[in-house]
Structure formats: structure tokens, C-alpha cells
């Protein structure tokens, strides 16, 4: 998952980015002011935007309105140090999905970030199930028919992304965009290797199982369609 962090306080941004990368393993892009944030958000490759309100050049509320007026549906989590319910109500009405008052708890921020991403993909529960595969997004563990599959962080993130969009064809580019921050192009040659490893590990967990991921040549990957048993 890829997160855009718009926050002008450098040290706070450092900590938030480190926590989001370390904990749930998100790719994090950082923008130090509102205009840069608006620019990056325009790429449309984010699964969540974490937005500070008091920003230089373009404040958080304006950025949010611009985003929503473009029809961008990316979940937005607001960070605010402002007092008063009025501004919160106003922000939620303007299209924000959630807010956290400063100073916040990092654990809570990560949990809310995960929940917002999940909701953004139409899932209500942290346990993702498709075919015979179960992904626990809290423990970051994967099981196939109850058998634990050991995956590397990148392989897990690929699988999690596909599990969030079960019937969708996910292009290599989209996968790259959502798994890495803005230097993703450096990783483009290794993504195929990661998918291949992932497929091997998933299929070898059960000897007679169907392949989990199918490749649509020139278009991308998707989870194998469920067959009637």
C-alpha cells in the first residue's frame, strides 16, 4: 500500500514515515507543503493520504477540497492540532474520512491508516479471504487452507494488494506504484521476480492446489477466479 504524507514539520514527518514503513510496511511519500502534496496526490496512485491541516502555501482543508472536487476518492486521514469540534465537522463534511488530534498515538495512527485503506477497498475486516487463502493484515501472516505460508515483506505486500482487489486485473505498473514510494521505477525489473517467488511459495504450500495468481500477458496479474468445487 502506498501512503502520501503531507506534513510540514520535518521531524514529525520523519517519524510518521518511519512508523508507516516499519509497521504495516506501506510505501510512504512525503510532501512538505500543500502544493507539493496536491501535485503528488494528482498521480492518483495512493491508497491513503495523511494530511496535516496547518500547511504552508496551501492549507490542508483547501488541499482536501481540491482533491474531492477532482473526484479523487482516496481515503484522507487528517492530523490536526486545532481545538474545537466545528473545524472537525467541517472537515468531515468536506470529504475527510477520519481525523486524529495531535499529539497522537502512533499505534492508533497505524490502526486507523489500515482501517481506512481497507474501507477504501470495500473490506470491513482485517482478515482478507479469497479462494482458500486467508491474509491477516494485523499479523501480516498468510495461510492457505490453514497452512501457514512464509512470505518476504515484498511478497506479502503484493499478495495483500491483490487480495484487496480480488477480481481486478492489476498491472505491473499499478503494483509498482502502490508498493513503492516515488523511486519505484528502480524496482520495476525485480517485481516479476517477486511475483514469481510469491506464486511458487503459495503453490508449494499445498501439493494439489490450484495456482493462486494468474498472469494475463501484457495486462497484469489477478487472483485466480474461484471455481465451483
Amino acid at each position, binding site marked *: 500500500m502506498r501512503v502520501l504524507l503531507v506534513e*510540514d*514539520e*520535518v521531524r514529525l514527518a520523519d517519524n510518521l514515515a*518511519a512508523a508507516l514503513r516499519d509497521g504495516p510496511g506501506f510505501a510512504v511519500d512525503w510532501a512538505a507543503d500543500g502544493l507539493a502534496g496536491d501535485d503528488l496526490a494528482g498521480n492518483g496512485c495512493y491508497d491513503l493520504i495523511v494530511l496535516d491541516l496547518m500547511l*504552508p502555501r496551501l492549507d490542508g482543508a483547501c488541499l482536501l477540497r481540491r482533491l474531492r472536487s477532482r473526484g479523487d476518492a482516496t481515503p484522507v486521514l487528517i492530523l490536526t492540532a486545532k481545538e474545537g469540534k466545528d473545524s472537525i465537522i467541517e472537515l468531515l463534511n468536506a470529504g475527510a474520512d477520519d481525523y486524529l488530534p*495531535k499529539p497522537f498515538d*502512533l499505534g492508533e495512527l497505524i490502526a486507523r491508516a489500515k482501517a481506512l485503506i481497507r474501507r477504501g477497498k470495500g473490506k470491513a475486516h482485517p482478515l482478507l479471504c479469497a479462494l482458500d487463502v486467508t491474509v491477516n493484515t494485523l499479523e501480516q501472516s498468510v495461510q492457505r487452507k490453514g497452512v501457514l505460508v512464509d512470505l518476504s515483506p515484498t511478497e506479502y505486500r503484493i499478495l495483500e494488494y491483490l487480495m484487496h482487489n480480488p477480481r481486478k486485473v492489476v498491472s505491473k505498473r499499478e503494483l509498482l506504484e502502490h508498493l513503492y514510494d516515488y523511486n519505484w521505477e528502480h524496482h520495476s525489473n525485480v517485481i516479476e521476480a517477486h511475483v514469481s517467488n510469491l506464486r511458487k511459495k503459495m503453490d508449494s504450500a499445498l501439493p494439489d492446489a490450484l495456482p493462486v495468481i494468474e498472469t494475463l500477458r501484457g495486462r497484469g496479474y489477478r487472483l485466480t477466479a474461484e471455481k465451483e468445487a
Partner: protein
Amino acid sequence: MKLPGRNSIAFRLIAAVLAVELFSAVLVGFLSLGYERHNHFHAFDTMLRGRADSVLGAVQDAEDKADNVMLDRADLHLPHTDVYEVWDDAGHLLGRSDNWQGCGEGYTPQKHDVFKLARVNGHEYRIIRRHGSRIVDPVKPGGGRLRRVMVVYGAPVAPVWQAIWGTVDFYAAGSLLLLLVTGPLIAWLLHRGLLPLRQLAALAADVSVDAWQFTPPPSAYRTPELAPLTHALESVLARLERAFVQQRTFVSDAAHELKTAVAVIKSSLQLLNLRPRSAAEYQAGLERCLADAQRLEDLVAKMLTLARVESGGVLNGPAPASDLASCVQDTQLQLAPFAELRRVTVKTESPAICRVALSGEDGSLLVSNLMLNALQHSPGETEVLVHLRVEDGNAVLSVEDRGEGIDPAVAPHVFERFYRGDPSRARTTGGAGLGLAICKGIVDRAGGSIELASELERGTTMTVRLPLA
């Protein structure tokens, strides 16, 4: 209608008007007393003279050899309380009223009428002594004989005084009645007249910290006595509201800054605690936390400085004075390592001594904030020029850098608290956006001015003018 209290303007006005009325009533009383007394006694004297003449008319030829005169009282019809006697020039009493023993003076030769007061039968009488003459047998050869007589005539004065007092009493009663009627009338008129004042007071009473709305009634503007008060109230309220809004903004800005600083420390610690880490990682994390705490400490110190600088309008004790030239030299020395680190040359030009009306602490704070600001915005291999001089009785300090300059749109805001021209840059260079606000606070308090001239990509010059000590 409520009765006005003892200290109210209405009460005082009513009391003043009534006192004036009372005074004029007394004055009218005395004047009328004098006037009536003069009039009545004038008439009384005329009457006395007339009655004395009628007594004189009753003096007739006695038809004797000596050509004497006599008083014939048969035709005299005079008030029974009046008294009279008639003397001739030979000193004979010709006649006297029955109710009198006479004044006992006899004939006194005098040309003019003489009036005097005397007590007759226990009452006060006004007495006239009138001289007249009779010619006995005028048809005789030689023209008859001239006989001089003197009539003494008196009448009681009590009825005259009665008439005078009657008139004065009438005036007094009239005045008193007027007082009684005008008292409540004035009270009512004043109550009506003071209506705009009460309306204004009611509106002013509605103003509170949460509701600054104050629209004076039009009557308050139209009333010349109220207009200055209304204008004063309006401007005071406007100033107070501005101050309150400023204070509130400061508190909310300060809270925002402090919360962000706390959020940094908290997140640093939680990040460290997210998963088990190596000793080296913990150590690095702790160092970062310490640095974050140090920044929080600096922020609080700056806020307190700003509060101190902005709070005191009035300075206690002797007027402060310090040497700005030595402040410049000291600051240059202090900032030398920082300038070296940023590869910026600092050039100063200043007189040997330049005393300004600032405390030493404020002086160094001002100079170091300006120089630090210039250094932070100077790219490497450039110069910062600090120039101190005396112009028109003011100390003029200018600090010039060759930095990126300040956007004209941003320039008016740089002296605002927590304002950062380029926040991401200011954050990384450690500014909290308070430095220039502190400078402005110091300069304002000393009665000086601070302004900036800037050109994008060319640099910025901050100029401070301070009165000399």
C-alpha cells in the same frame, strides 16, 4: 419612572433648578415687599395730607375782636381711629380729636410737612404735621389778618402693613405653588431627556468578551453631549476586541506549535518502541528525542520572551539604556562559528558607541535575532552586512543579506507571530517563526520602528530605527 438617587445627575439638576427657583422666589418676595411698601406708604402719606387739609378746612374765623381762628368740628367726618389736633401760631390749641391727648409739642414753626411715627393709644401711627394759614376778614381795609395754623394728623399704619403683607403673601404662595408643580415636571422632562444616555448604557452593558457587537443608537450620535462618549466607547471596544482576538490567536497558535512539538517527541518514542531494536538504534533514537525536547524547550523560551516583550507597555524603574555598538560586536563574535559553518562572511560597520533606549538583554536579543535570520537565509559564499549609524537623532541598524529575498505577498506578514516565509526551510533551520515577532515587540516597546526592503533573488535588508538614549 424610578426616583433618581442622591448622586444621580437628574437629582442634582432637579435640586439645582429648585434651589434657583427658591432663591428667585425669596428675591421676588423681598423686592415686592420693598416696592409695595413704597407704594402703599406713598399713597398713605397723600391720604394723610388730604385728611390734614380737610381738618385745615375746618379752621374758621372765630368772629372775635382779636381776629382769632377756631376749629369747627361739626363738618369733619374722619375715621374714628384717626387722631388730630390744630394749633395756631400764638400757641393756642384750637381743637383736638376726642381719642387723643396730643403729642405734647405745641406749635412748631416749619415750612414743610413733617412726617413721623409715634405710638398713640398703644398703636403705631404715622403722623403728619402740616402748616396752613387763614386770612381773617379779608374784606377789611388792609387785607384782613393772616393767621398761621398747624394741623397734626395721625392714622394707624397697621392696615397699610396688612395690605403690604397681603401682596407679599400672594407672591410667596404663588412661587411655592410653582416650585411644587415644576419639581415633578422637571423630573419627568429630565427622565425623558436622559433617555439616549440610558439607551447607550443598556447597549454598552450588553457588550461582553463573547459578544463585541456594539451599535450605538442614532440618538447617541445626534446628542452633542453623548457623541464624544459614544465615539470613545466605540473605539475603545474596537481596540479591546482587536487585542482579544490577537490574544486568542496567539494562544491557539502557541497551542498548535506546542502540540506539534509534543507530537514529535511522542512519535519518536513510540517509533522506538514499535519493535525490539538494537542498542545502537535505541541510542540514536534517544539522541533524536533529546534533540526534539531541546527544540520544545527553545520554543517555550521564545514564547516566554515574546510574551515578556509584548506585555509591558509601561516600563518600571529608570529608562533603560545600552550600547548597541557593543551588542553588534558581541553578537558577531557569538555567531562567528555559525557563520563559518554556513560559509557566510559577516561585515560590520558601526560607531565606537551608540547608546539606545533598550535594556542590554533586549539589545542583544534584537541584534542576534536579526543577524541569525540573515545568516539562515544566506547561501554559502555570500556576505551579511551589518551597518549601525546615527541619523536624525535615531540609531539606525540595518542588516543586509544576499539571500533569496522575500516574496512581496509575504512581506507584510513576516513580523506576525509563528509566521514562516518558507516553512519547510524555517523548520529545518530551527526557526519557530517568532524571531521577527520578538524583534518587532522589542522595537515597538522602545518607541522605534522596524521595516524590511527585499528583492527576490537579490536579498533582504532589515532596517531598525531606535531613539537614542
